[in-house]
């Protein structure tokens, strides 16, 4: 069991190292960092000074080591375009994205599991067919079109919800939250639905097929034979056994949620990390790009580590795998 944990952590570290190397190469070899920071008009002396200060004259492996040390402390230097520390830019934008992503994940999980269970239990009802058809369409619709469609219906035609931004936010320490004001909550609805929709359809289809599978299995037949009530079978027996793959997929999808937030944030002009990243790509703002890459990679590695650990807790077979006695 310990070996399993150690191996998961080692794999995560290797991924982070690879990502750090990519981020470093971007910083060092794409464009000239000195020109980017000082502009074209700087004197040769200024340039030489900055080159020395950034340590760009040192051997490349040494530079990579220094980059790594800074990255671990989340210091990615100064944004070429905005002239501010990348870490403070990220910290400023982080709450918006985290609130959006977490709420979307919860939305997708709750509605997805609910609809999936419904579609499995009442698989022949017309409503279940409608749900399945809509989910099929949802898979082929690009995220940004879902967002635009929602804006058209709820902001342009019905005028119920704001079409962009976070609304009013409240500061709690350095964290700004939109969860405590009415306009903040209203602004969250459409982005959350847009971002969660794809995950919702995936989770729903997974829950439905897993559930149908479990309902056919022997232990459910025996439970029925023992006279356990249908409701009890559905929720205590079937749903429980469905949850293991669902948790895995949902955990791995959290990274996907963060990445698709790039699109959702652009559609709704949401002041989060994704929008920051798209801007950075447009203006080749390498420090911001590499910081974002590093951040997303860290989220990915952490979530897949967490999924591994949950697996360990849920599936007792892993505990007695190779590595245990």
């Amino acid at each position, binding site marked *: 069991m310990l070996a399993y944990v150690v191996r998961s952590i080692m794999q995560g570290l290797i991924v982070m190292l690879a990502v750090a190397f990519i981020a470093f190469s971007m910083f060092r070899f794409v464009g000239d960092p000195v020109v980017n920071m000082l502009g074209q008009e700087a004197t040769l002396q200024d340039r030489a000074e900055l080159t020395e200060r950034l340590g760009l004259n040192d051997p490349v492996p040494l530079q990579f080591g220094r980059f790594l040390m800074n990255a671990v402390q989340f210091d990615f230097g100064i944004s070429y375009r905005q002239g501010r520390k990348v870490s403070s830019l990220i910290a400023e934008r982080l709450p918006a994205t985290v609130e959006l992503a977490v709420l979307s994940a919860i939305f997708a999980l709750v509605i997805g599991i609910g609809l999936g269970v419904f579609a499995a239990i009442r698989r022949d009802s017309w409503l279940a067919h409608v749900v399945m058809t809509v989910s099929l369409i949802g898979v082929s619709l*690009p995220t940004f079109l879902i967002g635009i469609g929602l804006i058209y219906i709820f902001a342009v035609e019905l005028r119920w919800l704001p079409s962009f931004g976070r609304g009013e936010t409240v500061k709690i320490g350095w964290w700004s939250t939109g969860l405590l004001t009415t306009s903040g909550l209203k602004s969250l609805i459409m982005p959350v639905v847009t971002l969660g929709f794809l995950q919702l359809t995936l989770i729903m289809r997974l829950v439905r097929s897993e559930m149908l599978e479990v309902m056919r299995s022997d232990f459910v037949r025996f439970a029925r034979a023992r006279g356990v009530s249908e409701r009890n079978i559905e929720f205590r027996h079937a749903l429980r056994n469905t949850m293991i793959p669902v948790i895995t997929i949902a955990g791995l999808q959290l990274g996907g949620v963060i990445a698709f937030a790039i699109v959702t944030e652009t559609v709704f002009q949401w002041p989060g990390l994704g929008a920051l990243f*798209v801007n950075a790509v447009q203006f080749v703002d390498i420090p911001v790009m590499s910081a974002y890459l590093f951040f997303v990679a860290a989220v990915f590695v952490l979530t897949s580590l967490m999924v591994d650990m949950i697996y360990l807790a849920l599936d007792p077979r892993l505990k007695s795998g190779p590595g245990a006695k």
Partner: protein
Amino acid sequence: MNQNVPPPPTTGAPAGRLARAWDSDLAYSFRTSPVAVFAAVLALVMVMSAIAAPLIAPYDPFDPASLDLMDGFTRPMQPNEISGKVFWLGSDGQGRDIFSAILYGSRVSLLVGAASVIFSLVLGVGLGLVAGYVGGRTEALIMRVADIQLSFPAILVALLVFGVARGLIPPAAQEQATLWVLVVAIGLSNWAQYARTVRGSTLVEKNKVYVDAARLIGLKAMPVMLRHVLPNVMGPVLVIATINLALAIIEEATLSFLGVGMPPTQPSLGTLIRFGQQFLFSGEWWILFFPALALVLLALAINLLGDWLRDALNPKLR
């Protein structure tokens, strides 16, 4: 798009090879699946009209001389109040015909989609073949990179590649190069799936007698891989390629929508959607709606075809 020409009938008097193709399992499964026929007709019409855009399009949307601000914001199917011109799907603020713009736009979308699929297919199949055939450290390295790549969403990888390419290409050449930068960016974000599949089937094929025979007559690794193993691992690859074409078209549209794709001078469907979004609030819905519809129909048709192909080629479902 409005001319629903069915694909030319192949029944006639099929002879020889054609007859055999008509009677094959694949063709039979195609004929008996209405969804597949519908998707194929839709895809064929859209691809054909995109290729023949200069012939079909009623206006040249990129000829500034033909644009007239007087024609701006004409509603679909209604004659313009001043000039009396009719635009089937309406016109945008500069008097550009939306229908023509969609024809030329789907041309760009299809070109980028197809080229990036070919790029990732060649790269992925090549690496997968080498990994499976050579094995050892090469295999471990290639598959590790593929794992890392697969755990990041394609859109993120494509954005990164795009940003890096922007930094490396001199500003003067950027507009010209955008199309190929997109092809590389989307291609690089999708190769890993091919590599995985091909490596898997190569591992199986490698141990078959015909490969031993080829090696025994003294062929080097390269010809064995390309001429003997490759044809036998291509089946599943074609299914992935079809579904990936739809994904690549959507990915390109997403990038262009984000403003990091095709420039307005050479718009794809995504660029048109990005452009149309600003008229959403002023009531000119057609500028956004028709390009979006074209994109969804194109992706849907290709997706349905891919689904059908996957089921038709799956021996378990026969």
